[in-house]
């Protein structure tokens, strides 16, 4: 009798399982891979979604939709009206923000649902698109795989070579809220085809400040992340009669190792950051004659000077625009806390007056296969 009762109870409980309302069959799902946010000339918010289509009958393998709505969650309803399955946001890989929207302040508030809804994937890459976002969503060509997958590869591999940053949605949250750092996200643009165009630097609130080229991004990454992925740098070699020649003196190298120390101090009412960078490099290209056996020390000093000059330009540019993508504020907080506390809410202002001194030490470890 007892056994029967137990089995009956277990059966009853198990049978209630299909009552689970969150079950979803894959064929009923539309997995959004890329979400776009933009604003049109009439200041109406536009939302885009790109999802793959898994059907043998379909000729096109991915569908792109754009709707007008007031918020991301509202836009989901509109998407559900259009696509065959229920739109799911758990697999989002790319998050694109258009140029016009980036110029408005407080666009970051639109992202609320991404952090509030636990099902959203927060590992999606943040992208600034220099143009209207619909261009990006309707760029499908026969030579490329599905738009979202193509862009994902494009961004990830570009980041591997350090010509752009890789800022996830979660990381953007940190960069926006962190007082001692301003955000930097991947920038895409369409020239003939859509291409990676370095890094977009944003202001404290998330508005567009300036763009870095892929070349400059490598320098930013070295300061921000240290050595991650491949870092290859190409520099001009000072030449007395350079400017007119077609083939100029140029030297390229890749960074094998990198260590940096930041010394922070507060003197005369402003912050001082002394960055000491030690680079271990290997020459990968030199298109002019040079006696490396004799003069490798001279080559080292030339590279040091060139790199420092690059950094000087980069820092000046950022200080002028009052942005701190390098996160010097974190150092200020860690080592000069009392002074930091006074300026933490206007850190970018304080940073624009700070004195940053970058000293590099280049150690040439390799010279390649030929002399």
């Amino acid at each position, binding site marked *: 009798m007892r056994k029967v009762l137990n089995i009956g109870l*277990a059966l009853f*409980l198990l049978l*209630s*399982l299909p*009552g*689970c*309302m*969150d079950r979803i069959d894959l064929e009923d799902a539309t997995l959004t891979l890329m979400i776009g946010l933009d604003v049109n000339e009439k200041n109406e918010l536009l939302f885009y979604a790109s999802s793959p289509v898994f059907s043998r009958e379909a000729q096109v393998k991915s569908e792109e939709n754009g709707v007008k709505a007031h918020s991301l969650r509202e836009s989901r309803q509109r998407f559900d009206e259009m696509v065959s399955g229920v739109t799911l946001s*758990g*697999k989002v890989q790319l998050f694109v923000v258009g140029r016009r929207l980036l110029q408005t302040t407080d666009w970051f508030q639109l992202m609320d649902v991404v*952090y509030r809804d*636990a*099902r959203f*994937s*927060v*590992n999606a890459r943040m992208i600034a698109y220099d143009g209207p976002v619909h261009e990006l969503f309707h760029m499908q060509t026969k030579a490329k795989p599905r738009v979202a997958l193509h862009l994902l590869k494009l961004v990830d591999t570009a980041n591997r070579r350090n010509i752009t940053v890789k800022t*996830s949605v*979660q990381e953007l*949250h*940190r960069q*926006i*809220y*962190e*007082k001692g*750092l301003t955000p930097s996200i991947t920038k895409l643009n369409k020239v003939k085809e859509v291409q990676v165009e370095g890094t977009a630097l944003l202001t404290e609130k998330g508005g567009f400040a300036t763009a870095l080229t892929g070349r400059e991004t490598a320098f930013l990454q070295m300061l921000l992340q240290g050595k*991650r992925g491949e870092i290859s740098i190409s520099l001009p070699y000072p030449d007395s009669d350079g400017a007119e020649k077609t083939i100029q003196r140029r030297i390229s190298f890749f960074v094998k190792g990198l260590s940096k120390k930041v010394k922070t101090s507060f003197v005369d009412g402003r912050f001082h950051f002394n960055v000491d960078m030690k680079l271990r490099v290997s020459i990968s290209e030199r298109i002019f004659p040079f006696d490396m056996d004799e003069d490798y020390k001279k080559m080292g000093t030339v590279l040091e000077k060139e790199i420092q000059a690059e950094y000087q330009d980069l820092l000046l540019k950022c200080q002028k625009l009052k942005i701190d993508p390098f996160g010097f504020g*974190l*150092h200020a*907080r*860690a*080592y000069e*806390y009392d002074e930091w506390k006074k300026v933490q809410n206007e850190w970018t202002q304080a940073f624009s007056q700070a004195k940053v001194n970058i000293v590099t030490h280049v150690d040439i470890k390799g010279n390649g296969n030929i002399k």
Partner: protein
Amino acid sequence: MKKYAYNEITVMQYIFLIHGAQVGIGVLTLPRDLANIVGTDGWMSIILGWAVSVMVSLILTKAMSRYPEMTIIEILQLLLGKWLGKAVVFLIVLYCILASMTVFTYAVALINNWLLPQTPAYIVVLLFIIPAHQVIQSGVRVLGRYSELVFYFTLWMPLVLLTMWRNMHWLHLLPVLREGWAPIFQGVPSTILSFVGFELSFFLYPFLQKKQYAALGIVTANTLSMLVYLSVTLFCFGFYSPDEITQFTWPTLGLWKIVEFRFLERVDILFLASYMFILSTTGLPYMLFTVFTTSQLLGKQDHRKHLYIFLFLIIVVSFIYMPSFSDMQKLVKLWGKVGLVVAYAFPVVLAAAVMFIRKKPKEQEA
């Protein structure tokens, strides 16, 4: 006479029962609470909180060793007389109900929030009831084995968290002692709350096979929990900026959302499923001792009848009422306040009582 000989537990089971009861809800919210109160120096409050809880644990063990074959139920009735003793024991029952229900509803709410937002809560409750019934009906020893097993099954977690190492910004932790010692002491109350759970030794002590290891066991359990809290908090502080961490309800869960493998994207879902086991080792002991105590109060040896009634009541209540988000926080706070009394004040009072009231158990008198 060994009353509980049929159900003795080993030292390992004793350690993991207590450790399991300690690590529960706190692990999800402690980093944020500490960031709120103390800032990035909060991890030091954990160590201070650990010291306090170890101290009280040792006092408790000492008090219990006076009557090594008795649970708190019998001790209280011996010391305070039958009726007053029963009244106090009844308060302990209420505490156990409060604790188990808080954990239980928290687990349901978490599942509802993170995994199954559309599923009605009572279905999740039903699903939790089955394993709860299976484990609890067999008593302390089985529960001990269960806690130990769950502990071994969670050992992969720190390894996966370590893959996050490159996302850490250890600069967040500096400067140490940024606002001096005062806020660190202010953080201690919320850390000692997360060590609540060792008071289960009130019940577990007589079940322990080798009593000479009781002190060692309870210190080990506390230390294990401290290490869990410390590592989770440090990782959260390293990952989240001190300016943003207070924005999240469950920073620890958010941490798992970042982990991504080539073959597995949403590790947080996997973690949450395993975390339910961790939560169960917090809630189930309290459930067991609720029904264990009520049975003893009514003079019954078999606690299973009371268990069935208790579980049935949970299902009925979950049909009618599920606490809202803010009720839940009130519930957790209430447990914190009551826990402070039961786990920290009560053992000290008890230790004083057994020192001064010299009553001998009946068996020994004879």
